[in-house]
């Protein structure tokens, strides 16, 4: 595994769109070549070298390329976008679309991330040690194919629209979430260890949501059926009140049985 270390110089005045900061783009390139990769600050097309000090060469393939991003990345977007393999570690906060449309590999952000992170994710692992804003692991506007695979783990809180149009994969939020969890969900699993304000599972067709804390306003379309024991997160076997829904939404049948979305509320 080769490591490329980027240190943000903080020379951008507006937001920097660093869509080429991925193991895929860095693979097979020297530090100098990486410095020549394109990025955008508003309508000014720039090169990564203008905005980052770059140390180390990329590995032969994406899978054996590791990228460590240092310095203040709070105003840098699109790190890890569409990556398929390898690893990125961001040591500060970073902005939108981090790990967006990710297919494989691993991204770790040690600070907070803004909105639309992990959007359209298909595989890999995305870890946020701080908080995430809105539309975590959601779908791009209009796309009915939201998160389809992979794991997102946010150690802090998340905002609204977690996992909209989710179809697969897993999202774990250690803290609270706000409105709209798994809206239009068609599969996958969301675990929220804190509280949620409301609209959990609205228009949900299929999928599982576990909430350890309180849901302030439950959707009318969810109906209590039974208590179950389940292991939402490995090694944490707990008892949950099991609700099915959204009874206002369409549901398909499998072997004569209607498949509902599920909310598991910790007892």
């Amino acid at each position, binding site marked *: 595994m080769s490591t490329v270390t980027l240190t943000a110089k903080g020379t951008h*005045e*507006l*937001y920097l769109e660093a869509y080429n900061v991925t193991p895929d783009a860095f693979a097979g390139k020297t530090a100098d070549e990486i410095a020549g990769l394109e990025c*955008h*600050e*508003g*309508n*000014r097309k720039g090169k990564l070298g203008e905005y980052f000090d770059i140390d180390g060469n990329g590995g032969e393939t994406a899978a054996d390329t590791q990228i460590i991003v240092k310095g203040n990345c709070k105003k840098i977007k699109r790190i890890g976008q569409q990556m398929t393999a390898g690893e990125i570690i961001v040591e500060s906060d970073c902005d*939108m679309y981090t790990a967006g449309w990710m297919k494989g590999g691993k991204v770790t952000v040690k600070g907070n991330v803004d*909105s*639309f992170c992990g959007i359209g994710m298909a595989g890999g692992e995305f870890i946020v040690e701080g908080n995430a804003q*809105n*539309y975590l692991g959601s779908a*791009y*506007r*209009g796309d*009915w194919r939201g998160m389809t695979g992979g794991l997102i783990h946010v150690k802090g809180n998340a905002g*609204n629209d977690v996992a909209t*149009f989710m179809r697969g994969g897993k999202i774990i939020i250690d803290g609270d979430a706000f*409105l*709209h969890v798994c*809206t*239009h969900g068609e599969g996958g699993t969301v675990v929220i260890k804190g509280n949620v304000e*409301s*609209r959990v599972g*609205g*228009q949900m067709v299929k999928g599982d949501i576990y909430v350890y804390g309180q849901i302030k*306003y439950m*959707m*009318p*379309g969810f*109906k209590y059926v039974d208590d179950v024991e389940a292991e939402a997160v490995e090694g944490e076997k707990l008892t949950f009140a099991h609700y099915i829904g*959204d*009874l*206002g*939404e*369409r549901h398909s049948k499998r072997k004569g049985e209607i498949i509902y979305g599920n909310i598991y509320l910790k007892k």
Partner: protein
Amino acid sequence: MPKVIKNVGCPYCGACCDDVEVTVSDDGKRVLEVKNVCAIGTQIFMHGGDHDGRIKLPRMRQPDGTMKDVSFKEAIDFTAKTLLKAKKPLMYGFGSTNCEGHAAAARVMERAGGCLDNCASICHGSSFLAIFDNGYPSCTLGEVKNRADVIVYWGSNPAHAHPRHMSRYAIFPRGFFTGKGHKSRTVIVIDPRFTDTGRVADYYLQVRQGHDYELFDAFRMVCHGHADDIPDVVANIPKETILEVAEVMKNARFCNFFYGMGLCHSDGRNHNIDIAISLTRDLNEFTKCTIMAMRGHYNITGPGAVWSWQFGFPYCLDLTKKTMVHMNPGETSSVDLAMRDEIDAFINIGTDAGAHFPIPAVQHLKKHPFITIDPSRNMASEISDLHVPVKICGVDDGGIVYRMDNVPIQYRKVVDAPAGVPSDEEFLDAVYERMVELEGEGFI
């Protein structure tokens, strides 16, 4: 002799009444009288043409804070240079601009490499997000007039926002299959306030503010055979009322939902509309059902149409790459761009961001060059570095506008603008030409 001009479109709300009669003075410069128009529309016509209060020259802010008249040439040059200097300029507004103006603006901003947004961003933008996710089963207003026997106003208050909507299209008119007018229709109003629209309703439901989504879900449960599972009270509405109203909708011959800001502006935003669309779809299993956004300005539907055919997106366009366009409201929307300090120049056109943005957003925008293009003084013009007066579309300029149901209405010019005052299109085309002059070759 004063001249009467008929079939004039009204430049106020999205109902786009096109039966206005305007009497203009002998010299064609002043409006003397208007007929078939609401109280608000009347005011607009009275402000057109050449009169004392009309601003006729651009005004540039001086170092001491005062405004000084400058030539249009200077204004064009300043605007072109501001755009070219900026890394990410934003042009926002377009509620009262014709479609020709929207197209001209698009050309300017594509060349400048900036963001382009319209008032839907803070108004019916939620509707666009819902349409992206769930579609839009709708119809034209004439269908409502001729067929609809159940009308639902949800989170909208036409008595105040679209004064002639109920009489022209929805409740009172006698259409082909609705010959008895009001008597052949059942009106349902759902709103947290008992509005003036609520007063004409057969059913008024005082929904708990911010909980429309849950109420929609309850109606959908009825459609999906789960009426029994509805809790006793949803969003302050008792279960019996929900069941009764759901039956009215299901047994309609033709049901239409008109919804407004009550859904767009409250918690969940687009999801409130998204689920309304789902309910509309569900009801089509029982009857015919359509839904329509009560669009605010007379041509706020226009930029959504023009930019969709030019770029594929109705609003919140990020053209900074110049080779492709990106859109994602929440990021590329004006208020978010402002609050996050993503942009470095602001042009306010045909709207008043100064009055209608939350004040912290205005404060952020004001950190950068700030230009207003608008016929009259407003809050944005009064904090601008440059204010460019233009013609009023629908009064002293014609052009195509799109009604709330996407029907194009061809507007007429009724009076002459003061000499030398350009239309939005003319001003923006001049800015484009100036940019080409400063930079070289234009688009083919």
